[in-house]
């Protein structure tokens, strides 16, 4: 079995990746991801793993170098945050269209402006439609486990898509937690070296990244869409294998005290733990409330989500991002449109909160719950604004 350590989560994420027999890492530092970049450098400079470390001059080049490396058959890794992810934006959908299973950690941070280095989900949301598998972790252990699993998921022959693991910046990345790091031998058994579907080498000269005319582009979109949706099955399969080998269970949608709840709160990422405590408090006060946590954001786990909210009357979606000038938070917007056609569906309320590092306490979740319950219409609430 692995060893238990007290470790900062960002460092643990890098340690987890170091167990994955990566071939190339191309990382550019940005707060709050930097400890991943720095620790990755430590590991490679100390010769602890056999990989190339490319100290790229930007995140655009980080993801581009990963694209080249992955196309050449390497297991490639990068990590970023906020502005860095925004700079990568252009390349993200290309990488998925090229079916390159690059893995990335995103230390979620608000996007500028104004400049703000603290946590929310406004960086990952603009990347939502880029064709990446997108996972959210709730704590440090999940950061380790999902970082390792992400390679297995991404490289599955049924998938061949890139994968981003979202780790809330500071809230998680800078926490020191008791964590279990699996042993190298265990991970090696779980995750053999990458076997690429095709790779750039003169022994078999192929062309990658070809362009598509109008007679083909739509078909490529369909192919990517089907592949990404199908990835959910593989995510579940890999979760199952992980549980068997390492004893920790995951599912694409998780629930807490949801069975008899008439009201459910929906969260992603680290706020899930605080929300769960709030649920306990509200339960103590006699409210029939529960919690739904989305672990898999893309592909959206439609069936699992619908099963989780079935029978509840009110669903309060907590968003850590806003579609400015749009319908509200991106998670709520998705959820509403997915439920729209259902005969029996809960009322969906949307609270946007915890932006740019504003703390969300248990009390805040209770207050948000009350606020939502009082609402007469379905418009979103931006919680905690000084009026």
């Amino acid at each position: 079995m692995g060893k238990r350590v007290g470790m900062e989560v960002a460092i643990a994420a890098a340690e987890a990746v170091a167990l994955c027999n990566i071939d190339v890492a191309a990382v550019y530092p940005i707060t709050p991801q930097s400890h991943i970049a720095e620790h990755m450098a430590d590991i490679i400079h100390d010769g602890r793993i056999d990989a190339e470390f490319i100290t790229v001059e930007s995140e655009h080049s980080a993801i581009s170098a990963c694209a080249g490396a992955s196309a050449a058959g390497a297991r490639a890794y990068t990590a970023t945050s906020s502005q860095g992810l925004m700079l990568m934006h252009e390349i993200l959908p290309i990488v998925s269209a090229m079916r390159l299973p690059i893995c990335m950690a995103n230390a979620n941070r608000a996007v500028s402006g104004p400049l703000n280095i603290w946590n929310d989900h406004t960086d990952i949301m603009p990347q939502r439609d880029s064709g990446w598998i997108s996972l959210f972790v709730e704590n440090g252990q999940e950061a380790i486990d999902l970082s390792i699993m992400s390679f297995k998921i991404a490289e599955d022959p049924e998938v061949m898509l890139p994968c981003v693991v979202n780790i809330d910046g500071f809230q998680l990345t800078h926490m020191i937690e008791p964590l279990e790091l699996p042993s190298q031998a265990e991970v090696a058994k779980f995750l053999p070296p990458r076997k690429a579907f095709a790779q750039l080498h003169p022994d078999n000269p192929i062309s990658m990244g070809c362009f598509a005319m109008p007679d083909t582009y739509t078909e490529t979109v369909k192919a990517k869409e089907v592949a990404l949706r199908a990835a959910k099955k593989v995510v579940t399969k890999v979760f199952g294998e992980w549980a068997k080998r390492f004893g920790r269970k995951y599912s694409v949608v998780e629930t807490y005290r949801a069975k008899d709840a008439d009201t459910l709160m929906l969260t992603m990422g680290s706020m899930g733990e605080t929300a769960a405590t709030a649920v306990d408090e509200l339960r103590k006060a006699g409210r029939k409330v529960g919690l739904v946590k989305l672990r898999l954001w893309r592909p959206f786990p439609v069936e699992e989500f619908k099963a989780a909210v079935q029978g509840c009357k009110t669903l309060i979606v907590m968003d850590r991002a806003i579609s400015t000038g749009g319908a509200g938070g991106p998670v709520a917007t998705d959820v509403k449109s997915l439920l729209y056609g259902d005969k029996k569906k809960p009322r969906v309320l949307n609270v946007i909160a915890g932006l740019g590092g504003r703390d969300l306490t248990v009390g805040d979740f209770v207050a948000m719950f009350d606020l939502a319950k009082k609402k007469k219409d379905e418009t979103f609430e931006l919680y905690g604004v000084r009026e």
Partner: protein
Amino acid sequence: MAKKKTEQKKWPEKWHELNPGCMVFAAGNAANYKTGSWKSQRPLWDNAKCIKCGICYIFCPEGCIQETQDGFYEANLDYCKGCGICAHECWPGAIVMREEEE
């Protein structure tokens, strides 16, 4: 050595028939596209004037001029776009460009 695979798939492809990631596995299969139809003039060789220097071969942007068995040169008209470079560069004047007939 690059092996020439002739990937003959039907066209247009259905979405599930596309190669993953729009990869092309048959190196150099652009050769299936005959650019010869672009030309409005074609090069004609007068081998009596040819000194077999190979300059026409060197400067053809299509790489469609080949050496014949007897050391002269000729263009593969399936690909020749009629740019006129070979005729212009053949300094002994062994190549002339002739308008294509309708």
